């Protein structure tokens, strides 16, 4: 029989705890970020995720919200060159970080190799998972652990695509990997 409420329940509790603090305003904290090369001095509430900061406050809507729980990869951005799910990062924890989003990777008229390869291979349909796939692929390239097609598939598995463009995505990523392996470097 369950006899007691645990003090070990240090961060789980019922609705009551929320009610107690309902009326208390949340603080606003300073945050310094470099986003796509641009230094930004921001003020954020600690409960704002990097994804919501980008999409709702900075109008950088290229990073997508597909689940908001780290289960789809659509929100993938690069933090200091590493791919992460921006939906699970509280922005305030990233003070001083360098963020690259799809908007920073390449722009219309100035496409990144991966962006061009995705178009060429028709590596998307609805396009909603696409920025996350491309940022993830850039992260995969930075990591340097994927070389074969099987490795690309495994290492891209954190990015779901409901339209089912997987084989074309793999083709696009492999093309860029190969081109880079053959000495063609992107600055």
């Amino acid at each position: 029989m369950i006899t007691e409420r645990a003090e070990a329940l240090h961060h789980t509790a019922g609705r009551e705890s929320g009610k107690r603090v309902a009326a208390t305003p949340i603080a606003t904290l300073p945050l310094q970020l470099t986003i796509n090369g641009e230094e930004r001095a921001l003020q954020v509430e600690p409960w704002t995720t990097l994804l919501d900061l980008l999409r709702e406050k900075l109008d950088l809507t290229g990073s997508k919200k597909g689940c908001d729980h780290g289960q789809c990869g659509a929100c993938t951005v690069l933090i200091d060159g590493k791919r992460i799910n921006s939906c699970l990062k509280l922005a305030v924890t990233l003070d001083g970080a360098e963020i690259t989003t799809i908007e920073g990777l390449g722009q219309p008229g100035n496409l990144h190799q991966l962006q061009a390869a995705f178009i060429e291979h028709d590596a998307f349909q609805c396009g909603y998972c696409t920025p996350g796939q491309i940022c993830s692929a850039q992260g995969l390239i930075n990591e340097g652990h994927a070389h074969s097609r099987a490795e690309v598939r495994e290492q891209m598995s954190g990015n779901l695509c409901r339209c089912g463009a997987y084989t074309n995505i793999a083709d696009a990523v492999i093309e860029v990997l190969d081109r880079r392996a053959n000495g063609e470097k992107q600055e």
Partner: protein
Amino acid sequence: MNAPAKVGIGTPLSRVDGTEKVTGTAKYAAEYNVPDLLYGVAVSSRIAKGRITALDEEAARAVPGVVDIVSHRNRPKQAWLDRSWKDELSIPGEPFKAFHDEQILFAGQPIAVVIAETFEAARFAASLVEVSYTEEAHNIDFEASLAEKFTPSHLKRRNNYHPPKNRGNADAAFKAANLTVEGEYHLATEHHNPMEMHASTVEWHGDGSITVFDKIQGPQGDQAYLASAFGLGKKNVRVVNSYVGGAFGSGLRPQWQVQLAVMAAIHLERSVRVVMTRAQMFTHAHRPECSYSIKLGAEHNGKLSAMINSATTSTSRFESNMEDIVVWGMMNYDCPNASGEYFIAPRDTYTSADMRAPGAATGMTLFEIAVDEMAYKAKVDPLDLRLLNYSNVDAMNETPFTSKALREAYREGAERFGWEKRTPQPRSMKEGRELIGWGVATGMWDAQFSKTAARAVLTDDGRLEVASAASDIGTGTYTVMVQVAADTLGITPEHIRAKLGDSDLPTAPVEGGSWGAASTGAAVQLACQSVAKQLLKAAEKIEGKPLHGANSIDDLVFADGAIALKTDPSRIVTITDVMKAAGLDRIEVEETASPGISGMISMMRKSRNTHSAIFCEVRVDEELNQVRVTRVVNAVAAGRIINPKTARSQILGGVVMGIGMALHEETFGDRQLGRWMNHNYAEYHVPAHADVEDIEVIFVDEPDPEVTPLGVKGLGEIGIVGTAAAVANAIYHATGKRVRALPITIDKLLDAEPDVA
């Protein structure tokens, strides 16, 4: 002019909206930067059925930034009559009306929407709304619901439902058959789960009008629905859906988030955005669960003599969703005796809905598993059995097809796959610890056409804009429009802009049923032909009349921004010169493509369908029963292919979703609580990169000038039909284990016994 470069129908043009999509500049419903926007977060019902007795909003309203809470208690006026809530694809019953009253009809039903200055404040406050209920008995269990199954009377059926037409005497033939197969087949509840969660941004203009950026598959149906349901007047509602992050049917009908966003906007006279959570994505449309009893009788050689079909699919208590489940085998196979019956069973869930190839993806797929079983019974190669029972006509409706190149699809698919190397015995192919299985199945879907209008505007700089209120949900509609226009007027795609996804544009139907490319394409072609006629007329004003002698545009070649005489290509003039000579700064036309009388007659006299042959290789670990789908070849007969690149992608996508149907996708419901439990992307599994290895798509030649004006049949759905059966049949060939319930998860395979030595 020598062999002018022409990007027309049949060329693999890269998606014209590709740049927007890969750079993140394509705007989806929740991404419009509207000034003074408020954020709404829905409060969802804990219970599955009953009534709300109290709403305690005190704590929620105390949260700084909260502006208001809208619920049944304070919502703006809604239309009373159910008919005012009918949308383009409504089905018999009472459409769901959020906040209409205190009734709870399904778990997760929106009860209130908390509106705040920030998303975070709204989300927090929504968690503080306390709801009291009186609960009523409920049922979401499909097996239990079968006790209440019924066939709706004629007047209460979906208007696109096709009842099975029986032929011969199936019962007697089955009893007399040399060989029989009899089984209960099952498909789990699936949720569409497009990557983009349903979202609506409502911009309040202050003059009584609103612009709704919505996730919807048809802006004009949405516009009419919102105008009617909330008494706004059609002129005051504009719906924009320029980009839709997948839908697969979940956006055919307006979903509840748009109701909430519009109600909140009206109530507060402010702009409001409401985005569903992924968990809330499990509180609306889903593919119905299906139970399908199939009996097949055949002669010793496998020639089918009887088929008896009985299927039931799930619906809600408030609407009667119906699908064509049992007709596919009856149409596809030559078999003198066939019967079918169909029921729906109500559960206390939201209404089931069309999901990629509704009916066929379920019915044809399950039927194709039964057909496979008969092949083993008859000791006939599964492909040969299908050829033995091949029907050149629609065997149920006794009508010829406008075209049916399924035989070619079987042949080309088998060749590419290497089917002849298959050894017939189950468990006869093995490599290391893996059993290898090869399976085949047939796919079939409708080739439909829907009345659609398009506008073309040619300006004197040689640029063209084509526009229609169609939608592109990843289907490639933008690209098809550009390509058909380029083909018709010989203008380079870089100089053509396609506009769609806006209720202000010329009338188009909802994007669904795979009719988009055929219908929008035909409308664009008509509009462009109309422009061409005006150009021909205008060319008369050019000195020397270079196009003289052309009686119609059929006598002309349009290429490279120029017009030439077919008979004498040296007689050529550029489009811009024609316009200048005629003093035209623009030519604007709008045309509507409709089936016309001959088309209507053809529709009655002939069946119009796409077909496919799917070949699949699986590798199954003999002891652990882990399944890998290592190879799929899908050979498709779908008339004329406008763009082989985007068309291929459509099929790839269908195949991937078919792999999900075969192995992964299943929504689990808790009977006691009456709610779906794995309502997230971590526990509702869709295929990931690692699950998809090698898929090949073949389009077989199938000229069909009759089916639609462009000879196009549509490709959005055929890719999924039958794919799961090919996987299931391959699993049987590998393991000797026949699993009749999809998805074939590892537990089912572990529990199954091989039925061969």
